[in-house]
C-alpha cells in the first residue's frame, strides 16, 4: 500500500496519541453518532433489508468462488464495448501502467474522483515522481490533499477536520494549486463548498485525463458503476478525453440485475440516503458522449492472498460503505489515522492485514484493534462476520510468535487456575505486596503500553468470602 504509511506506529501507540486529541475526538463523535442514527432510519424503511443483505452476501460469495470465470467474462465484455483491459499484480505495476497511459496522452495533469484503490497503491505519489500532477476532486479528498494530510474515513475522508480547520486550509493552500480561496472566506459549509466549486471547475474544464475507481463492475455487460454525491465523479468520468479506472478484482459482480441489490443497500448503509445524488454507469466508450478512450486496470495487490484464506476471504465482499466505522467504539475514539492504512475501522482491521500480510508491527497489531463487540457485523450490508475474521487473524498473529508476553501470561494463568492452592497462595501474596506493584503491566511492546492494571484489593476474594459468607 501507500508509502505514506511507512514508519507508522502500531495501532495502540497511534491510538493512544489520537485519544488525547480532544478536537479530533469531538469531531469524530459528532460525525459517527449523526450518521449511525440516520442509517438506522434509512434501513428501517425497507421491510426486506435482511433478504437484501442475504442476497448481497450470496452474490459476492458466488462471484468470489468463480472469480476467474467472471474476470475473464468482464475482460471480454469491456473489450467488446471499446475499452482496454490491463492486469496489475501489485501496486507498483498498477502505478506503472497508469503513468504509462497518462504519458501516452502527452498530459501532465489528471483529475481524479475519489478512489480507495488508487489510495491503496499510492498512485498520486507515483505519478508525481513521473512529473504528473493528480488533482483530487472530491471535496473531502481536496481538503485532505491541500492539507498535506491523510484520509481518516472511507466515506468522509476529512471527518477529523472541523469547519474552522477547513477554512484555514483553503485560505492558506488553495492559491498554490490554482484558483485561490477568497481571503474573507467564512467557515460556513456552503461558502467552503462554493470555494471548492470555483477552484475545481477550472481543472474540470481543461482536464484531458480522468482517473477513477469503481464501486462495481458487471461481468455480463462490462459496465462500471460509480456512486457519488457531488458531481465531481461525473465531471471526471465524462469531460476528459481519456478515462482510466483502477479497480480491485473483487469489485466484480456477475449480472446487470445484481446491481439492484447494491443500489438499495449501499446508499442506505453509507450516507444513510435512499439513494446518493449521482450514480453513473458506463460500458466501454460511447460515440460522441464522454471519453474517447477507456482503460480498465484490474488490481490484485494482495486480494488473491485474502481469497486463499477460508475464513478471511469474506472481507472481499466489502462494498466500502463504511457503516462499520460509524458504529465502532474503537474507531470513534482512535480515528482513522491510527489504523495506518487507507482502510480504517473494523473493515480495515481485517482487510489490511490480509492484503499486506502480518509481518510488520502495525499490521500484526490491527486484529487487536477491536473490542469484538460485534456492532460492525450487525450493520454490514453484506454480512461480513468481522469479529470472526478478527479472532482468526489473532490466531494467525499469535502462531507466528506475535505477542509473546501475552502468551506467557495466559500459560501462567492456566497453570494457576488448575492448582487451587497455588492460586490462593498467589492471591494472598499479591494482596500483601500491593504497594510494590507497578501501575502498568511490565514488559515492552504495544500491548502493555496502553493498558493499566486494575487495583489489587486489600484482601483476596477467598478470604473475604470465608469471613463473611461461611
Amino acid at each position, binding site marked *: 500500500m501507500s508509502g505514506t504509511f511507512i514508519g507508522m506506529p502500531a495501532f495502540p501507540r497511534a491510538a493512544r496519541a489520537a485519544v488525547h486529541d480532544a478536537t479530533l475526538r469531538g469531531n469524530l463523535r459528532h460525525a459517527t453518532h449523526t450518521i449511525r442514527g440516520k442509517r438506522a432510519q434509512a434501513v428501517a424503511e425497507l421491510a426486506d433489508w435482511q433478504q437484501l443483505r442475504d442476497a448481497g452476501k450470496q452474490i459476492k460469495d458466488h462471484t468470489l468462488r468463480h472469480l476467474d470465470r467472471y474476470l475473464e467474462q468482464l475482460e471480454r465484455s469491456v473489450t467488446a464495448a471499446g475499452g482496454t483491459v490491463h492486469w496489475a499484480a501489485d501496486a507498483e505495476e498498477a502505478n506503472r501502467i497508469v503513468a504509462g497511459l497518462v504519458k501516452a496522452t502527452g498530459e501532465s495533469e489528471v483529475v481524479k474522483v475519489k478512489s480507495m484503490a488508487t489510495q491503496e497503491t499510492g498512485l498520486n505519489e507515483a505519478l508525481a515522481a513521473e512529473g504528473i500532477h493528480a488533482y483530487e476532486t472530491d471535496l473531502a479528498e481536496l481538503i485532505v490533499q491541500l492539507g498535506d494530510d491523510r484520509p481518516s474515513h472511507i466515506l468522509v475522508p476529512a471527518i477529523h477536520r472541523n469547519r474552522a480547520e477547513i477554512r484555514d486550509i483553503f485560505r492558506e493552500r488553495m492559491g498554490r494549486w490554482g484558483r485561490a480561496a477568497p481571503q474573507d472566506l467564512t467557515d460556513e459549509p456552503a461558502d467552503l463548498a462554493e470555494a471548492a466549486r470555483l477552484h475545481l471547475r477550472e481543472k474540470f474544464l481543461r482536464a484531458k485525463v480522468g482517473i477513477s475507481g469503481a464501486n462495481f463492475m458487471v461481468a455480463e455487460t462490462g459496465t462500471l458503476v460509480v456512486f457519488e454525491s457531488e458531481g465531481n465523479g461525473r465531471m471526471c468520468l465524462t469531460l476528459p478525453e481519456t478515462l482510466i479506472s483502477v479497480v480491485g478484482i473483487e469489485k466484480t459482480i456477475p449480472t446487470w440485475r445484481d446491481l439492484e441489490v447494491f443500489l438499495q443497500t449501499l446508499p442506505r448503509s453509507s450516507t444513510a440516503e435512499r*439513494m446518493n*445524488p449521482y450514480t453513473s454507469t458506463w460500458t466501454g466508450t460511447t460515440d460522441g458522449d464522454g471519453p474517447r478512450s477507456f482503460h480498465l486496470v484490474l488490481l490484485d495487490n494482495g486480494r488473491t492472498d485474502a481469497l486463499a484464506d477460508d475464513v478471511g476471504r469474506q472481507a472481499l465482499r466489502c462494498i466500502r460503505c463504511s457503516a462499520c466505522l460509524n458504529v465502532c467504539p474503537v474507531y470513534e475514539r482512535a480515528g482513522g489515522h491510527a489504523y495506518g492504512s487507507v482502510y480504517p475501522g473494523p473493515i480495515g482491521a481485517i482487510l489490511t492485514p490480509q492484503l499486506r500480510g502480518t509481518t510488520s508491527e502495525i499490521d500484526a497489531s490491527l486484529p487487536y484493534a477491536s473490542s469484538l463487540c460485534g456492532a460492525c457485523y450487525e450493520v454490514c450490508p453484506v454480512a461480513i462476520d468481522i469479529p470472526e475474521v478478527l479472532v482468526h487473524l489473532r490466531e494467525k498473529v499469535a502462531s507466528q510468535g506475535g505477542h509473546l508476553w501475552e502468551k506467557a501470561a495466559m500459560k501462567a494463568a492456566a497453570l494457576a487456575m488448575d492448582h487451587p492452592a497455588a492460586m490462593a497462595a498467589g492471591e494472598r501474596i499479591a494482596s500483601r505486596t500491593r504497594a510494590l506493584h507497578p501501575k502498568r503491566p511490565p514488559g515492552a511492546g504495544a500491548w502493555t503500553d496502553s493498558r493499566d492494571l486494575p487495583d489489587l484489593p486489600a484482601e483476596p476474594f477467598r478470604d473475604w468470602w470465608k469471613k463473611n459468607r461461611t
Partner: protein
Amino acid sequence: MSSRDRILARVRAAVDGAPAAPAPTRSYLNSHTPGDPAAVLDLLHHNLADYRARVHRTAAACLAPLVAQLLAARNARSVLVPAGLPDTWLADTHRVRVVEDTEGATAAQLDAVDSVITGCALAIAETGTIVLDAGTAQGRRRITLVPDHHICVVRVPDQVVASVPQAMGRLDPGRPLTWISGPSATSDIELDRVEGVHGPRTLDVVLLSP
C-alpha cells in the same frame, strides 16, 4: 508469465477445493409500494422533494408556460436543449437564447449556459431518482452536469416505476446511464448537507401528465 495469467492462476489456486457458492436467492421484494399509480406518483413527488429537488405537476397543455416561468424565475438568458426535445416545451419561452447541444460544444461553452432542459428515461418513486440514458431529448451526459440549473420532464405514468428492481429491467446497460437523486450535494464538512458542489445547484422536476 503475464500478470493476467499470474492473477488468474492465483485466483484458481485460492478457491481450489472451496465449497460451491450457489447462485443468489432473490427473496427480496420487487417493490415496497402498493401498485396504485396515484400512490406511486405521490411517493415519487415526496421523495424527490425530500432530497431538495423542486417538483412541479402539470398537464401537457400547461407545460410550455411552466417551463417559461421556471426559466424566468432564474433570470436565465440561455437554455441548452438536446436533440429530440419537443419544440412545444419551449413554445412560451421568449427572450431566452435556445442553444442546441452539438458534439463539438466544449465544456467551457456549456459552462456559459444558464439552464438545461431534458426529458428522462424513467423515474423511481421509492428513491426519488430520475434516470437519464442519453436517449432522445436527453443528450450527452455532460449537458445535465455543467450548467447550474436543470429542468427535467418526466412523463406520467409511462416513465414512472415504483422501485429499483423495476427500473433495472427497463434500462439498457449498454447506454451510459446517469441516476440523479436531487441536486448535487455534499456532506463532507461536519456532515452538514450543502447543495451544489459541482453539478447543477437547482433541479426542477416536472411530472407531466397527459
